[in-house]
């Protein structure tokens, strides 16, 4: 399946990425060639085949409901770009 420049821009925005205008055509062509590569799957009949999520078909283990984490705010915020009063700062959130 091919994707055009506007399609690539739309998907990029969904992924919160920007693509320079002068690179959009090239990106669209590259992405299209990748999609063409993966489209070879479509010829395969997979009717009734259960998707494989874990190669050993393992199941989820459950954790006891016990508090194991102490406050580590100082440490965990050590790499945060903008913090004030223990809060992560972002441009104003408008609802």
């Amino acid at each position, binding site marked *: 399946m091919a994707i055009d420049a506007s399609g690539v821009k739309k*998907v990029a925005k969904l992924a919160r990425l920007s693509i320079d205008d002068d690179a959009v055509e090239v990106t669209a062509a590259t992405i299209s060639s*990748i999609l063409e590569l993966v*489209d070879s*799957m479509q010829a*395969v009949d997979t009717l009734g085949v259960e*998707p494989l999520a874990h190669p*050993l078909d393992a199941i989820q283990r459950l954790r006891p409901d016990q508090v194991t984490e102490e406050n580590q705010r100082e440490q965990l915020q050590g790499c*945060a770009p903008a913090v004030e009063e223990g809060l992560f700062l972002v441009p104003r959130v408008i609802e």
Partner: protein
Amino acid sequence: MTALSPVEAEPLLYNTTSNRPNPMYDKTIAEQSRALASGEISSVELTQTYLDRIRLFDGDINSFITVTEALALEQAAAADQRRAAGDANAMTGIPVAHKDLFCTQGVKTSCGSKMLDNFIAPYESTVTGKFRDAGAVMLGKTNMDEFAMGSSNENSHYGPVKNPWDKSAIPGGSSGGSAAAVAAQLAAGATGTDTGGSIRQPASHCGITGMKPTYGRVSRWGMVAYASSLDQAGPMTRSAEDAAIMLNTMAGFDNQDSTCLDHEVPDYTATLNDSLEGLTIGLPKEYFAAGLDSEVEQQIRNAIAEYEKLGANVKEVSLPNARLCIPAYYVIAPAEASSNLSRFDGVRFGHRCEDPKDLMDLYIRSRSEGFGEEVKRRIIVGTYALSAGYYDAYYRKAQQIRRLIRDDFLNAFKECDVIMGPNAPTSAFDIGSMSNDPVAMYLSDIYTLSVNLAGLPGLSVPAGMANQRPVGLQIIGQHFDEARLLNIGHRFQQATDWHQKSPALV
């Protein structure tokens, strides 16, 4: 890093001169461990030797992103004390390097990305924690394709890694830094991760031994995720025996990783010398078809002949869906990656753009500035594959094909004990020769991807040279059959000396 001119350096740092044959850095972990135990050398001396070699040679090879010199010497001194106190294991005092996607507390963990150039991990990954607890010395963090996306190590914010055998060649990827560091004897061993071949292929290209264990054998806690259902950490070493020693430390259940399996960990060194008499090796006809370089094929066939001499039987098997591993992988991995990498948003850690004017601007500029081209490409492909209307045709379809691919292996293993073949269609290609053609690069992963999709263990051992560059033999086993793979690799290395060869560094 201040480059020390080779002439000023101690002669013992070289392996080009013959005045000290088989110096300590040219020994395996097994040998170094015995030398540490006998007191022939101290961990501090051994560590210093590697640090010196890194300073001498890595400016050119670029296999390290961070060298933790002070920490390494501190850990080495502690290891020596521990040894003196009689509390040592095979890894105590052995200098190793970790791929820069294992979180290491207090040490930069960049994933080869500008996005994490400023990220000092506040916690330790399970794998690096196990090495630390065993008393291993961390020399530093190795270069890699950004977020482990790549087969050539050209996609690093910190520049490409050069193949120590031929500096015009790629070392392979994404664990290219680890492979090059071990090949150039800048570390006794290294950790890598393998999502679609990222341990086996660079091991093959750099002439070293590399193992991708069964999915779930090694904990992924603290390993920055590329594709969660495929990522698996493993050892990169100079011999199968060393890989067994490192895997003894790495493997095991971890209750912090839901996908990690609670399966007994054997002593991988205990069965290294078992006989190969009666072993049945399956050769998938699909792996010896058009596209495989004839020199590579010759080396693989030579290696298989060697196994026949060791008592193994060879038979042809079929993996009918083998070719589908490329489309399936290049949907599943980008899809998972597109979601795994959403957390890099400039809010809690990582790169944040200057003066964002609003939230959208913060997200878009931080991510667009922080991620490199290949990462963006895969995020876009993955986002597209998961977007409305395409999920069934892409992600679900790929997961169905994944089951077909796994079942092919399970069927093949009814007829043989292990499967052998190449790791890559060619030996290492030239730096820059494929960087404008991602699809061609993806196609070169044809022999390694399906092992990840099926969750199987795979081992690459050096098996000769093709076009003057190393070639590795890939050995694929059944789930949890790591001990047998290491045994098979070890017996080959007892009979051949490809793994003992090392590149001449000047």
